[in-house]
């Protein structure tokens, strides 16, 4: 990221409210305070938002430093675009419970899938590591 016009830079996004999607599936929302060439980010007044179905819950997290390699996407939150029409905010306890149930069903289907593949002598390697540029 440099100062040549027309190139993708995060310098104009500083001090604005952003949403960042992380590689582990988490969503963080906060004010972007600092950036660098690796897309390492410093977030202020961060909130971790958990989505399950149409419900969501926010957990306050304070200041976050995100290592660039974990960033999938960074989006500027447009305050004029409403999202409350579709989504329903619930308490932290409730959303954590919903998430736990969702993880449980996911693990069970994953287990069944792996067993079926194993019976046929197949296995799918996990794509955990991303390439460097």
């Amino acid at each position, binding site marked *: 990221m440099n100062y040549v016009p*027309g*190139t993708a830079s995060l310098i104009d996004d500083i001090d604005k409210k952003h949403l960042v999607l992380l590689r582990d599936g988490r969503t963080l929302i906060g004010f972007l305070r600092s950036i660098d060439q690796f897309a390492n980010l410093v977030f202020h007044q961060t909130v971790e938002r958990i989505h399950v179905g149409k419900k969501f819950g926010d957990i306050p997290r304070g200041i976050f430093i995100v290592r660039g390699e974990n*960033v999938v*996407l*960074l989006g500027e939150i*447009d305050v004029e*675009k409403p999202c409350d029409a579709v*989504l329903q905010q619930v308490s932290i306890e409730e959303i954590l419970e919903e998430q736990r149930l969702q993880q449980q069903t996911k693990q069970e289907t994953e287990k069944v899938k792996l067993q079926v593949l194993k019976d046929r002598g197949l296995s799918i390697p996990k794509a955990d590591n*991303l390439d460097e*540029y």
Partner: protein
Amino acid sequence: CFYSALFYSFFKSLVGKDVVVELKNDLSICGTLHSVDQYLNIKLTDISVTDPEKYPHMLSVKNCFIRGSVVRYVQLPADEVDTQLLQDAARKEAMQQKQ
């Protein structure tokens, strides 16, 4: 240290066009290409998620920055790309690299 500035230049020529970016986490985002950098990080404006039910968190987001390392595909309309020119440029680049 960089394999090619070729695709950086190629994407620069597509700024302003509508593209669909498919990420390695299977999320697909449609939007207008605003800018690109040497790492092939992409900035899109006026985005819409092609499968909004799976990813509700993007509802309030109009513009986004996508890290180059998480892109799987960038889908382009065929009439926006001169494939012959691109092929020739890639071939030339490959020849230069061999030396």
